[in-house]
């Protein structure tokens, strides 16, 4: 397993991260899977306060409490559960973030969060107020570093300009190369890490029947999946090829794979050991379908 510094931070994150969102409700099974991941070199675990209404943070916290110093815990904030229980509201205001962090710390059974991420964001948010919350929490030692989970270029640009974010979590795969146009160059220029999610495009690049995805038709998705299959070998399966495509993008620090089963963990880990894609193989994959770009929030 290789480790890379996350942007300007001192967090050395494993190139494969453990996306905890899909974990089930069995704490013992989750702990078994998480411990296995740790033992195999994964040190980055990503959760959020809204996953299963906080239960996801609880199960991750239970699993990692005895290994706290050797792992990097990332969680997210910005979605507030309504008091009447009818749903979530977007809330990036400082007073809410300052209160929400305490609840996350309690659920995670820790006194600091390594990476605290704003879970979304719009250009109409009170961005300076939000940044002030993260800066204050960092000064108080509640969080070590902060970032944002967003795919909106206009929002990302504002945080790059106004804050000290060290990472952006965003979707990236052969079927979603939208960040390549302007976001990746901006982040590389400013030494901000990318935590890539959605690396197998909901399984469409691997084993799911072709279906329309983003701006691509089902036929184009099938073409992309066929290109991945063609670039794969007996020692580098399709999932690993798709993951390697993401890992070999210079802007990407870590690919965060959603893991729920031992087989999925094995798949993700095998991508690390799989042979690297050759430049001509990457080019062929890139040429399989026309590159897409963001249409909204540019």
């Amino acid at each position: 397993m290789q480790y890379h510094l996350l942007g300007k931070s001192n967090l050395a994150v494993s190139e494969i991260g453990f996306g905890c969102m899909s974990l089930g409700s069995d704490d013992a099974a989750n702990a078994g899977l998480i411990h296995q991941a740790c033992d195999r070199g994964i040190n980055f675990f990503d959760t959020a306060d809204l996953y299963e209404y906080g239960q996801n943070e609880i199960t991750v916290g239970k699993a990692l409490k005895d290994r706290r110093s050797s792992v990097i815990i990332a969680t997210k904030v910005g979605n507030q559960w309504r008091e009447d229980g009818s749903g979530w509201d977007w809330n990036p205001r400082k007073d809410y973030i300052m209160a929400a962090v305490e609840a996350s710390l309690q659920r995670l059974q820790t006194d600091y969060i390594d990476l605290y991420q704003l879970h979304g964001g719009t250009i109409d948010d009170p961005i300076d107020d939000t940044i002030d919350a993260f800066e204050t929490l960092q000064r108080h030692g509640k969080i070590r570093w902060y970032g944002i989970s967003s795919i909106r270029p206009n929002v990302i640009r504002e945080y790059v300009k106004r804050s000290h974010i060290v990472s952006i979590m965003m979707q990236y795969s052969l079927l979603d190369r939208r960040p390549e146009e302007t976001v990746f160059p901006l982040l590389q220029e400013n030494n901000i890490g990318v935590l890539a999610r959605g690396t197998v495009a909901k399984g469409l690049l691997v084993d799911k029947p072709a279906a329309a995805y983003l701006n691509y038709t089902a036929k184009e998705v099938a073409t992309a999946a066929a290109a991945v299959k063609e670039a794969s070998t007996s020692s580098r399966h399709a999932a690993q090829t798709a993951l390697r495509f993401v890992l070999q993008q210079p802007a990407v620090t870590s690919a965060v794979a959603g893991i729920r089963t031992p087989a999925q963990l094995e798949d993700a880990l095998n991508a690390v050991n799989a042979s690297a894609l050759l430049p001509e193989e990457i080019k062929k994959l890139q040429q399989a379908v026309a590159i897409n770009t963001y249409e909204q929030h540019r």
Partner: protein
Amino acid sequence: MSSIDNTIRCFLFSYRLRYIVFHLKACCYAKTESGNVIVPGVNDP
């Protein structure tokens, strides 16, 4: 019914269909990316 009426009806129907498909797609997408919640900036369609 005039052909103009038919054209307008056809246009409105296709617009409504696209609107429904757009929201259905947004819904499905959200289910895999943020635990059934549509988060602005995370799971935009």
